[in-house]
């Protein structure tokens, strides 16, 4: 199900998702209409524009929260022209998985976007790579990231996007065991507590990168 006030974008997205084998069960131009549609027929995932009428601020997050309260099984994919760290932290904090936050640009890579939609539908967390790259590149006074090897940095960035060890391994063409070793090394070097669930892990890493 899709919600975006930009009609051309929304309809283009619906067409393209249908081509890619998704079933688009409904479209809405604002949050309240979307909520009504979802109540009538809950989809696997709702794709929601972050900035919608009436205020063009962060209405999408409010809509997402309302959906989560009424239909907790629906995955929530927020799209935006800008990705902001505080929104990402809020989404991870408040939603406990099954949530994604991506630049609108990402939908043009259909294969990757389709994968991300399915991950959100499964309950994973998906965070835009741009936002993570910005945080990793950020200059710090005494930078704990200096202690990481290039490989460990690459693993850290993918972890922060919500990828599981298996997914990180596939992305970097490494063995899962190797990735696990990297993850342990990263958490030790950064003094972070390891979490079993990816969602908790994303939160820990992003909070660390933000601090």
């Amino acid at each position, binding site marked *: 199900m899709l919600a975006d006030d*930009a009609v*051309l*974008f929304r309809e*283009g*997205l619906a*067409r*393209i998702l249908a*081509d*890619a084998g998704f079933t688009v069960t409904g479209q809405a131009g604002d949050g309240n209409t979307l909520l009504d549609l979802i109540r009538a027929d809950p989809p696997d995932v709702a794709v929601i524009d972050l*900035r919608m009428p009436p205020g*063009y*601020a*962060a209405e999408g997050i409010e809509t997402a929260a309302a959906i989560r309260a009424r239909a907790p099984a629906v995955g929530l994919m927020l799209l935006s*022209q*800008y990705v*902001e*760290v*505080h929104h990402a932290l809020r989404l991870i904090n408040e939603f406990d998985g099954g949530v994604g936050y991506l630049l*609108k*640009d990402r*939908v*043009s*890579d*259909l*294969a990757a976007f389709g994968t991300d939609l399915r991950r959100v539908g499964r309950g994973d967390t998906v965070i835009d790579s741009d936002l993570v790259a*910005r*945080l990793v590149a*950020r*200059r*710090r*006074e005494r930078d704990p990231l200096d202690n990481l090897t290039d490989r460990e940095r690459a693993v850290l960035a993918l972890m922060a996007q919500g990828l599981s060890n298996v997914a990180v391994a596939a992305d970097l063409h490494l063995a899962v065991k190797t990735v696990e070793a990297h993850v342990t090394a990263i958490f030790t070097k950064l003094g972070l507590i390891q979490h079993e669930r990816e969602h908790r892990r994303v939160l820990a890493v992003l909070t660390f990168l933000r601090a």
Partner: protein
Amino acid sequence: MLELRATAQRLVAAGDATRRRMERDLHDGVQQRLVTVAMELGGVVRQATAAGATDVATEADTVRAHLLEATAELREMARGLHPAVLTQDGLEAAAGFLADRSPVPVRLTVAVERRLPAEIEATAYFVVSECLTNAAKHAAATLITVEIRQSEAGLTVEVADDGCGGAAKRPGGGLQGLADRLAVLDARLRIDSASNGTRLRTVIPCG
């Protein structure tokens, strides 16, 4: 005098409103169109791949990548015009964004309890933005501290670096622009710049 100041205030407010509107128009107009076109191109890539036309698919995908680069540039321009994050989420979030982007490490403290009038928030934002840019460009600094604090006297904005000093207003420069903008809000830009660093400070009265 009072009349002049009121006129100047109206001019600055009108300028801000125009920039905000232009950002909105870019966001809802051109930017939206460009991501839509990129998305459609993504569809072409998919069809070409499905039809076995790998050359066309690769070509179209390269065009898509170029288009997204242009979109990213436009996004940065719109942000320079007026950051949507400031209007939506306030000074702390917007200053955090600037600090994240700074090539010199920034220690940021924001103590602002409530949303302030748009022209005050925008002015504080532009002070921080210009001073961070200057410190990175001119100071050869290793650390910048930014403090934004709200008190009875008003909103204090202070940016200090540990660079080489030498900051001074010059006609048409960023600092002069800040000073002019601040004057309209009844505030002064204090510049202390010596060989151990530069400190810029202002207190914007806000009732």
